[in-house]
């Protein structure tokens, strides 16, 4: 009999999801607001259980699930995002008749991501990947009368479905060559793959499959549309949460299982990382929709994190893993702040209602919604890597590790990209603080304020006192080496 206590965080999330779904049916739209608080509590409990279980190690269900420092770190990432998203969604779902569906989808997606984080078997990994993906497909199209939301969801779904197929195809090749789907067993038999041309095909297919989730160029086509069209809280979940699912899967599959093929995938990731960060930053400069700009900036950030696969030193992996948590707070927060502005524009019915997240909506935000503006400033400065924020520490570790490995050229590219990104982030700050407001001051709804402050706390904590997070990231990196 397995000791289910190891799965306590996952069980807490699933149980909350099921309870929300069940009792929501019997509630009126007015009382459904409490479901949000219930979901938030469930995530909070799961988060506490995860942190409490730090340091335990176990494998379960015939070795298909592995509880280790890596999986725990990523569970922390997913639960933190989920917490911020659930909190902010309380306002988004106010007086809606579909609250229970929304929350159960968010919670199931979170559950899927958490299982991906601990999956030690390709089939389980694939199933969990699909669970998270299907839930997020539905969430992206949640505003079913909003054409943009539907367009984004449709693109996301079609490209997502194709990439799932590619991933499964890749897994089948790996299985064909090695005769197993267990990650440690593949690692043992990796020579079978390395000596077989099929190995190369498998690597290409898997990179395409995971690259879609990580939104690496050229598998990114869906991301700007989906991030812009989806409700902001969902964009937040997609960019900050489900993107990291791609990373944790890639960490385990490439670095642990396919270590023998390192030269092949390392080359691929080198090209992908450089192209992704450069493309993301260059295109972000010309965006006028803030959510779209954040989407491209999210590409750029994925490019930075992908550098961990290129450098492959313990320091680089620590940096990459640390970066995922930092990015989770920064990006989740930034999308929620954009969501608060969208809410302001739509509820006031003034301004650019067609594109409520247009840069113009941010004019004088410092006067209209001081808290949202201040938090947004913290997030964009963090994304740009300005101290004392999480983004700075993450870049410090990750970028500096390239020097250690002697890849100065990569550091130069990354740093130049980072300098370029400052341009569009600073422009947003200029709009918020140095342009006159167009409209009166708006009170900040509590759920948004709480979610933003939570994310700010995360960003600043990781920037000012990074030691515990750094230690966790180091432990997580140890699993991979």
């Amino acid at each position, binding site marked *: 009999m397995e000791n289910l206590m190891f799965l306590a965080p996952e069980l807490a999330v699933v149980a909350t999801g099921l309870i929300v779904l069940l009792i929501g049916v019997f509630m009126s739209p007015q009382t459904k607001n409490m479901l949000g608080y219930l979901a938030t509590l469930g995530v909070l409990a799961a988060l506490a259980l995860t942190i409490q279980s730090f340091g335990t190690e176990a494998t379960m269900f015939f070795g298909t699930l592995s509880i280790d420092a890596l999986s725990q770190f990523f569970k922390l990432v997913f639960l933190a995002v989920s917490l911020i998203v659930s909190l902010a969604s309380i306002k988004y779902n106010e007086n809606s008749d579909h609250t229970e569906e929304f929350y159960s989808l968010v919670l199931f997606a979170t559950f899927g991501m958490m299982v991906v984080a601990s999956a030690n078997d390709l089939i389980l990994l694939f199933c969990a990947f699909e669970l998270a993906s299907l839930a997020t497909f539905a969430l992206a199209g949640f505003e079913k009368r909003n054409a943009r939301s539907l367009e984004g969801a449709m693109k996301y779904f079609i490209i997502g479905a194709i990439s799932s197929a590619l991933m499964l195809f890749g897994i089948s090749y790996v299985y064909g060559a090695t005769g197993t789907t267990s990650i440690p067993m593949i690692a043992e038999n990796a020579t079978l793959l390395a000596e077989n041309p099929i190995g190369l095909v498998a690597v290409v297919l898997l990179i395409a499959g995971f690259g879609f989730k990580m939104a690496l160029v050229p598998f990114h086509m869906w991301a700007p549309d989906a991030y812009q069209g989806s409700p902001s809280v969902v964009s937040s979940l997609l960019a900050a949460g489900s993107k990291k699912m791609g990373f944790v899967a890639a960490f385990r599959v490439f670095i642990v299982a396919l270590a023998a093929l390192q030269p092949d995938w390392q080359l691929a990731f080198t090209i992908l990382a450089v192209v992704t960060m450069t493309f993301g930053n260059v295109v972000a400069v010309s965006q006028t929709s803030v959510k779209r700009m954040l989407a491209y900036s999210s590409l750029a950030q994925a490019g930075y994190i992908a550098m961990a696969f290129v450098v492959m030193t313990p320091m680089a992996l620590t940096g990459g893993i640390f970066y995922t948590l930092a990015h989770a707070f920064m990006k989740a927060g930034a999308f929620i702040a954009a969501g608060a502005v969208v809410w302001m524009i739509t509820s006031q019915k003034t301004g650019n209602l067609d594109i409520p997240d247009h840069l113009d909506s941010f004019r004088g935000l410092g006067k209209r919604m001081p808290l949202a503006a201040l938090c947004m400033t913290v997030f964009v400065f963090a994304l740009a890597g*300005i*101290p*004392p924020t999480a983004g*700075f*520490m993450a870049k*410090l*570790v990750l*970028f*500096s590790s390239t*020097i*250690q490995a002697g890849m*100065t050229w990569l*550091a*130069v590219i990354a*740093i*130049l990209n*980072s*300098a370029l990104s*400052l341009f569009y982030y600073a422009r947003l700050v200029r709009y918020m603080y*140095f342009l006159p407001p167009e409209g009166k001051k708006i009170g900040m709804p509590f759920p948004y304020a709480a979610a933003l402050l939570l994310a700010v706390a995360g960003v600043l904590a990781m920037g000012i006192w*990074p*030691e515990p997070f*750094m*230690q966790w990231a*180091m432990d997580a990196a140890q699993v991979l080496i």
Partner: protein
Amino acid sequence: MLPVASLLILVPLIFAAVTFFTKTKEQAAGLGFLGSLVTLGLTLYAYMNFDSSTAAMQFFESIEWIPSLGVNYSVGIDGISMPLILLISIVIPFLILYSWKEDREAPNRFYGLILTMQAAVIGVFVALDFLVFYIFWELTLIPLFFMVNIWGGEKRVHASYKFFIYTHVASLVMLLGIFGLFYASWQQTGIPTFDIRELVTQFQFFESSLLRDAIFLSIIFGFLAKMPAFPFHSWLPDAYSEAPTAGSVLFVLLKIGGYGLFRISLPMLPNTGNPDLMITMLGFLGSFSILYGALVALRQKDLKRMIAYSSLSHMGFVTLGAAGLVTLSVSGAMFQQFSHGLIMSILFMSAGAIQTSAGTRIINNLGGLAKKMPKLTVVMMVGFMASLGLPGLTGFIAEFLVLTFSYVNLPGFVLLALLAIVITAGYHLWAMQRAMFGVYNEKLGDIMDINSLQVFSMAAIALLVLYFGLNPSPVLNMMITNSEAIVSLAAALGV
């Protein structure tokens, strides 16, 4: 004993934060002034308790910050940083008084940014950990950028972005050098550390001379671009002349580039792959900055632009004196930083006053201002005389020390710089003559002299220029002590 080094960062920072929330101009200026006075008090306390007979670090504090990367929050003050802290703490209160009666939008941000700038610059001076150093180094960019971008002249947007991008990219190159230093030392000793003094010491043990050169050059590039030195100066004229007066003075007080040279680059220099080449390079950049700055200043039409180029020329003495690598030439270079900060503050304040009163800074459109602005003329004259190196004022001492003692090692470059002395005297006197003396230009109409607060603040700085010109030892002694330490290190290695 108070933890002065930390307080010197914290006090202006806290006052800055509070100032941002003030509503009226009086509150903002008053609170800013109070903050700068408290900082000045702390600085004087540090100065009184400072022992100038030792090159060791004083007021040292260290707290563990990120042990896994070897980052500590460590700060301290020695003879290299003390005079520069003194400089900025003295000038800022007078700067606030000078701008007290000016009307501008968002005074709370204006004075808040001045104090933020002060905190950041002092932070660079006291930091003994590369990460802390770099954080404050980058923090100085933000107030200056907004200073130019919000309250600057017509071409402020262009000037502010140019300044920001130029020096930010240079800082990133420096950051790469710091990373290189960090990892090479980690590999060497097996212990990660960001401690500046430790890393500078470890530098000599790196095996590859190519690596040492690359680290040295990338770090010094950040410093030279910030100082700035020819040919990395192209942001300077735009930023200095487009900035509001207070912004220009803050630029002048931004002595972090030169400071980095003494704190980090000079101790590393003897251990580079080819020290002679590096010294020649620095000497060349220094003397060329002096000559080039003076030549370009000579043909400027705009008074403020002329002063900006003269600033480039004067900063050349810092590079040249550092390259001289003799105790007194290095002390001269340090003293030049101190003296230049005081003198240029007067000059930029004068140019600002002329702009406000006469409505133009184009030298040919001025003329005979002495008749209408006698008070300004007197103070400005002191500033210009100090700037051209009149004996008895601080500029003379600095330039004399640099030129005399750099001659030992770099005779050729000193001769080049001597050429510029004549030109320097020329453009200063010529500008003064055209703008202030002669027949009054009636087209300017009836103009007002500077107000009493401006007289007071500019005269006070002018008196300090005179005082330190006659009696430089209160700051020069500690500079000599620390220069000796730097030079003896070089001498021990036979450079």
